[in-house]
């Protein structure tokens, strides 16, 4: 886990900087660059995201869209009058080559018409064997900080834990997958599952059948985690079962940013009462796995 890619928090970056020729060379052309605007709410402010496929997504408020002058479409999650618009610019497209009319128009809109400025979380996955990626000079002139994903480990003792069987999806002999997911969330949040009569906070109960487990490890990682890193983590977890261990299953839950403009491919993501979009893997000894994919109210169905 120490091998997670370092990410950068850069403050007050004007968005047109990302379109500079030199910047494009070091970031978008690598094909592994991720950038997301930091602390901008998806339902209130303008959110900017840059994908590794080279697409720049601006999810902007109505006023900003009318002043910006770039064509986009109204957000799917709008009522009678759209209050939110999504502008997608493909930076790898031929028409966006530096010097073309479209490129000039986009640059003019982002530089002179409405100078959008946000804090960014940026990371670029480096290929194994080459040196780690660092901020290009066009971005490092703004105040930046290099951060590492923070890892927090907890050991839980005497935890009531449901019994699971890998191929049992309907919960006939063992715990049902949906109930298990709920229990997992409860454990993650530290909610007590005793369901005592005197407790008014929660009536969550550990699903039947259950056993009592001596020790369990709960590990939380926070930061801008890249898919490649999560993939390698998953591989490691699979290898954990190569040697005989006492536990019969382990689970990995990955949460997406609540304020990201997209989720699951290019589907639009909104924030209704919660901006959850996550998936969780439950791995069993025999290399079986359960995959739960969860989304919030203003979201498309996961693939």
């Amino acid at each position, binding site marked *: 886990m120490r091998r997670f890619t370092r990410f950068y928090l850069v403050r007050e970056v004007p968005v047109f900087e990302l379109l500079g020729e030199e910047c494009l060379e070091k970031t978008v052309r690598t094909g592994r660059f991720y950038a997301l605007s930091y602390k901008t709410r998806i339902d209130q402010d303008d959110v900017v995201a840059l994908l590794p496929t080279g697409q720049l997504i601006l999810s902007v408020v109505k006023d900003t869209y*009318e002043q*910006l*002058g770039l*064509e986009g479409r109204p957000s799917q999650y709008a009522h009678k009058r759209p209050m939110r618009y999504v502008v997608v610019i493909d930076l790898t497209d031929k028409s966006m080559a530096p010097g073309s009319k479209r490129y000039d128009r986009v640059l*003019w809109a982002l530089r002179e*018409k409405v100078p959008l400025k946000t804090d960014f979380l940026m990371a670029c996955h480096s290929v194994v064997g080459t040196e780690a990626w660092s901020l290009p000079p066009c971005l490092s002139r703004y105040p930046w900080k290099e951060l590492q994903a923070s890892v927090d480990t907890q050991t839980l003792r005497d935890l009531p834990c449901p019994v699971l069987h890998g191929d049992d999806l309907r919960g006939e002999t063992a715990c049902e997958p949906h109930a298990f997911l709920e229990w997992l969330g409860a454990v993650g949040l530290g909610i007590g599952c005793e369901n005592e009569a005197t407790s008014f906070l929660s009536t969550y109960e550990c699903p039947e059948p259950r056993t009592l487990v001596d020790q369990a490890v709960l590990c939380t990682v926070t930061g801008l985690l890249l898919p490649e890193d999560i993939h390698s983590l998953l591989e490691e977890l699979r290898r954990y079962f190569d040697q005989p261990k006492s536990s019969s299953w382990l689970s990995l839950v990955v949460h997406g940013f609540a304020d990201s403009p997209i989720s699951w491919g290019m589907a639009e993501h909104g924030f209704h009462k919660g901006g959850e979009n996550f998936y969780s893997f439950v791995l069993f000894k025999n290399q079986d796995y359960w995959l739960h994919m969860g989304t919030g109210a203003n979201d498309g169905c996961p693939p």
Partner: protein
Amino acid sequence: MSKESQRIVELKLPEDQSQLLGVKSQNDEKAEAFTSAFLRRSMPGASLTKIECALVHKAVVLKYHKKAGPKKTKRPKGLSAKQRRELKVFQLKPEHLKYELFLPLHELWKQYVRDLCNGLKPESNPQVIQNKLLKADFHGAVISVDRSKCPSYVGTTGILVQELKHVFKIITKEDKLKVIPKRGSVFSVEIDGFVSHIYGSRFQMRSSERSAKKFKAKGNIDL
């Protein structure tokens, strides 16, 4: 029939002219009697009244003259819309569409606005200037689209060539004539440091009618 008989009668006269000269008045009766007898003979079926009618001399008017009355001077009514469209009075020819040709117009407009606002000093009240501009004519002003419901209009700048009821016709620096609808856009006009924003949706009237219109603050200014 009557024509023929008349011709016969006329033909006869020159032959007997010398004989008839002296005794004309008598011959009138005789001639009449002779004519009627002859007619009766030649037109056996016709009645006496018909013969009489045939002999009546009617005057045939060959020309008709009307008295010329006092001449009324006509007021020029002006051309109707159809005639205007045919004459293409409001269409600009392509050779006239050069940005440089409209720059003198822009200078004229600047002068006009300066006179209208009594010279644009930095301390003049923007409210007063705005009120005056509402009734002013904008032909020749440099207008740019600030915000618009349709993002492709945003940013177009140029000299206003024509103001119609619902659109602005603008010529850009690249000598292109752009037609921009007023609805759903906010235009910005700049004069001597004063920038004025015009909400196009509320401005939809002919410039001639706008000078007489009172603007009320109704509804919201959301695009």
